[in-house]
C-alpha cells in the first residue's frame, strides 16, 4: 500500500511515546507534504541531539558532549548548594520556580526495591564524592514525594548524615489554589507537621 520508505517512517514514528499507528500515519503524511527544508531541519535536530548530547560529568544533567551543563558552568550559581533530583526534567520544574540559585545533581531514577533498582544503579556515589570534595554546605533532597522518592531521600539522608553538610528535604503540603476538603490524609498530615509561624 505504501512505499518501503514511507512504511519505515510510519513504523519508526509509531514507536514514539503516545503515538499510535493512526497518529504515526498522520505525522508521516504531514512530513511528506511540508517543504523538504523543514523536514530536513527536524532530521538534523534529531541527529544533532543524539550526537552532541551527553550527561554533564559533574551533575548528570543533559549537556553538550565533553562539557559541563549550562547550570554547572554558570559562575553565578551557588555551587555550595546541591538540589538532588530524580530526572533532568525535574531540573526544569525547579528552575521554573525562579527560587533556587544553586546547582543540581541528577540521580537518574529512584530506589525501587520492587523493580530491583538499588543504590548502585543510581548516581549516588558521585553525589557523595561531590559533597566530600567540593565545599558543599547544603544538599536539598528534591526527589518525588512518592514511596520510591521518599525511600531515596531517607537513604541519602542517612548516607550524608555523617558528612559535614546540612541535608534538607523539600516540604510536602497542599497545592496552592486547592481545597482542604479534598486533600488526602498523608498530604494534609505532612502539611500540619511542616507548619510554620506567621
Amino acid at each position, binding site marked *: 500500500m505504501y512505499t518501503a520508505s514511507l512504511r519505515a517512517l510510519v513504523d519508526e514514528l509509531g514507536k514514539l511515546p*503516545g503515538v499510535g499507528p493512526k497518529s504515526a500515519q498522520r505525522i508521516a503524511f504531514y512530513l511528506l507534504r511540508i517543504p523538504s527544508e523543514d523536514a530536513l531541519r527536524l532530521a538534523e535536530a534529531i541527529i544533532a541531539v543524539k550526537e552532541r548530547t551527553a550527561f554533564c560529568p559533574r551533575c548528570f544533567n543533559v549537556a553538550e558532549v565533553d562539557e559541563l551543563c549550562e547550570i554547572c558552568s554558570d559562575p553565578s550559581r551557588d555551587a555550595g548548594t546541591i538540589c538532588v533530583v530524580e530526572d533532568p526534567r525535574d531540573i526544569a520544574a525547579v528552575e521554573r520556580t525562579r527560587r533556587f540559585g544553586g546547582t543540581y545533581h541528577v540521580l537518574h531514577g529512584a530506589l525501587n*526495591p520492587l523493580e530491583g*533498582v538499588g543504590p548502585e544503579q543510581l548516581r549516588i556515589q558521585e553525589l557523595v564524592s561531590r559533597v566530600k570534595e567540593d565545599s558543599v554546605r547544603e544538599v536539598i533532597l528534591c526527589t518525588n514525594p512518592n*514511596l520510591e522518592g521518599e*525511600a531515596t531521600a*531517607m537513604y541519602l539522608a542517612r548516607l550524608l548524615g555523617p558528612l559535614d553538610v546540612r541535608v534538607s528535604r523539600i516540604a510536602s503540603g497542599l497545592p496552592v489554589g486547592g481545597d482542604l476538603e*479534598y486533600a488526602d490524609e498523608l498530604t494534609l498530615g505532612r502539611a500540619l507537621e511542616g507548619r510554620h509561624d506567621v
Partner: protein
Amino acid sequence: MSLFRDTGIVLRTYRLGEADRIVVMLTEAHGKVRAVAKGVRRTSSKFGARLEPLSHVALLLWRGRGELDIVNQVEVVDQFWTIREDLERLSRAFSMLEVVDQLAQDQHPDPRLYRMLLRALGVLAERSSNPILVAPAFFLKVLALEGAAPILDVCAACGRPEAEGGLVAFDLHEGGALCRSCRRGRSMSAPALALMRRILGGELGRVLREPAPPCAEEVGQLATEAIESHLDRRLRSVRTGAAL
C-alpha cells in the same frame, strides 16, 4: 459494566501515559485487582497520595469491558506511617508486598492472604515491634497457607524423628529439615529450627513480642530461600533491600 466497592492494600504501581498509573491491589473480596488511577501523578489529583504502595484503602472501582478497572473513589483506612518513615521497616514491607503480588491471582479472592498481609503490616508498623522477624515469619506463614510449609518435625527425606541425631540441614527440594545422614542444601542451627517451629506452631505473636534472638538472621535467610524456591524466582526487593 458496574461499580463495586472493596477494601484493598496497594501492592505496586506502574506509570501509564503522561499522568496516570496502573495500581495493583490485593482486595478483600475481588483478589488481585489492576486498576487505572487517572491523573494521579498530577499535583491536582483528587487521589493524592492515597494510592501509593502500602496504603490500606477503601475503594470504589468501575469494572468495564477491558482488563483494567478504573479507580473512581478512594479513602484511606491506614497509611502505615511508621513503616513509611523508617527505611528498614519499609524495605521489609516491600518484600512482603512483592511476595503477595507474585502469589495472588487476578480476580481470585483470597481473604486469608489479605488478612495475613494486613496483620503483618500492622505488626511491622508498631513502634515497639522488632522488624527483623516480621517478613520471615510472614513468608513461612504464607507457605503454610499455600500448603507448602517446610517439614520441621522429622527428616523430610527419610522420615526419621529428630531424636536420632538431630535435624541439621534445610533443603526445600526435599521439603524441609534433613537429618545428619540425609543432609544436603544449607546447614541449619538448632535454635533456628526451634524458632521456625514456634512461628509455625501458633506462637507467632509471642515470638514477635520478644527481642529478636541471635538466630533471627538465619531464620530470615531460610525463610527467604524457602519462599523463593516456592515462587521459583528471586525476590528483587530482598536483594535490593539488603543494600539499603
